[in-house]
């Protein structure tokens, strides 16, 4: 409760006021708790203007911010999940799918789009973390492979923004095999000399980090993203000691040689365009900074 609210007599205080900030007007930084004007935050690509924390964003917002406005086409959206195992924990997987599809508006945890990055043709995909923790099941694996195939067909670079807890438990071994499937597709891409840039965002762990996300020709991290094979809680339970500050964050991975670079979200377009232009022996892309809305 803020000092101001404490001054207000309790009978005129609105209950839960602080929580029910009108959607789309005010946001709170999940790191420093600063209350931010939503429009400012958006203009700043969902990076907290106070503490530079990179807030988690949806797959669609991600691609909107990354690709040029013109010439975007969605790919592989027809691929949808099924409950092949009739998996049931406290809830049926089938029901979870329907429920999550409703709440997120996505059919599964990955969105693929073909388009341009500062005029350079690319295929870009992004994990949807709010869809069952961005977990990779058969549909996500298939969508990723179709993204790879689209990149191969046009010889355009592939960029993947990962945000995932790992393989989807409800599809059991079928999910595990998506690690093999996505990695094998990337091996074909590499054989044909088509570049793949993997951008690891908060969080990228488990089966996704142990397959496609670590296989970039360039591995790029967003600042302070949690990246690792095992989750910090599992490690803590195994080694029975508290983990050092900053363990499994992008900066830690850069230090240990797992990432090529850490790129601020606000520079992502320009940095990656400059990389792709050089790999493709193209002229320097337009460096005049532009912010797509």
């Amino acid at each position: 409760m803020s000092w101001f609210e404490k001054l207000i007599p309790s009978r005129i205080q609105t209950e839960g006021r602080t929580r029910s900030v009108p959607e789309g007007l005010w946001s709170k930084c999940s790191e420093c708790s600063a209350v931010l004007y939503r429009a400012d935050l958006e203009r700043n690509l969902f990076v907290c203007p106070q503490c530079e924390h990179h807030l988690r964003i949806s797959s669609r917002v991600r691609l909107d911010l990354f690709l040029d406005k013109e010439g975007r086409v969605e790919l592989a959206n027809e691929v949808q999940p099924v409950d092949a195992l009739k998996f049931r924990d406290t809830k049926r997987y089938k029901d979870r799918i329907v429920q999550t599809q409703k709440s997120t508006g996505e059919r599964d945890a990955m969105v693929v789009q073909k388009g341009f990055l500062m005029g350079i043709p690319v295929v870009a995909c992004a994990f949807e973390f709010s869809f069952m923790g961005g977990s990779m099941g058969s549909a996500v694996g298939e969508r990723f492979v179709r993204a790879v195939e689209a990149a191969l067909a046009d010889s355009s670079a592939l960029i993947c923004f990962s945000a995932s807890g790992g393989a989807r438990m409800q599809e059991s071994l079928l999910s595990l095999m998506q690690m093999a499937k996505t990695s094998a597709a990337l091996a074909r891409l590499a054989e044909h000399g088509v570049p793949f840039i993997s951008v690891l965002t908060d969080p990228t762990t488990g089966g996704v980090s142990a397959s496609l996300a670590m296989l970039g020709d360039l591995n790029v991290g967003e600042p302070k993203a949690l990246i690792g094979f095992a989750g910090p809680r599992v490690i803590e339970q195994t080694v029975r000691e508290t983990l050092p500050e900053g363990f499994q964050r992008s900066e830690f991975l850069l230090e240990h040689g797992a990432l090529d670079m850490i790129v601020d979200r606000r520079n992502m377009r320009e940095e990656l365009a400059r990389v792709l232009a050089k790999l493709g022996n193209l002229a320097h892309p337009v460096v005049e900074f532009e912010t797509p809305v």
Partner: protein
Amino acid sequence: MDLKFLDFEQPIAELEAKIEQLRFVGDDSQINISGEIERLKGNSRTLTKKIFSHLSSWQIAQLARHPQRPYTLDYLDTVFTDFQELHGDRMYADDKAMVGGLARLEGIPVMVIGQQKGRDTRERVQRNYGMPRPEGYRKAMRLMKLAERFGLPIITLIDTPGAYPGVGAEERGQSEAIARNLFVMATLKTPLIAVVIGEGGSGGALAIGVGDRLLMLEYAIYSVISPEGCASILWKSADKAEAAAEALGLTAERLAELDLVDEIIKEPLGGAHRDLESMSEALKTTLLKHLADLQAMPTDKLVELRNQRIRSMGRFREA
């Protein structure tokens, strides 16, 4: 070594104890009780058959982790000959949770790679309970590439609870090590047969398991997560491991139904640990059969078929 019995095998254990007792008596008395012993042995076999004819997924998981279950080095002794272990990843260390080297299968030179668990406390620690660190996966990759250069088929024996989740493992890139192996195995220009001999624990198992054939022993398991791990995440209680094991469908039989496993290798009555010799014989015969098929194929075709196989994995619908 005395046979260890699992909980669900207790009725068999009791019968076997009775047989032992009679044998003991028989040794120092003149009474002929061999007839009685034979009868009880027959009963024990019938009972074992009965119990093993309807095992639950959880019971199979316990068999896969049986402390007396044959491990990779046991099969290197019985199925293969002329084994020479090769060590180290050439970068950091030699991981003893992953073993590998040159051997012969019925005279054919092959590369064998597998996770290795320990038999007693000291060895378990030394082998890190069969949980490899990045250097283990990098050693495996080095040996696979070595095999490729000399045209040797690769046989991997999978038996691990998973890749080790530790601080050092993360620092040295556990994710990258596993991912790189998946990438490399997809294009290896030599046959690769993977066999799950015990526990197939998630990415740590898959990291040596992508190839032209996936075989499983009858009571081996293979899963994206351990039943205990799955239960504590989805049911918020590790006690639900039994239900999780069932839901995950981690047995050879269920996985074959999903077309993920090419062949299930039958185990002797009571499990592989009851009769290593006949288990080894069955494993050897099956390996030779698949190896002959794969070696008859031109390399391009082999790699193409492998990629088609990997490409087709998964169940989804299009709308």
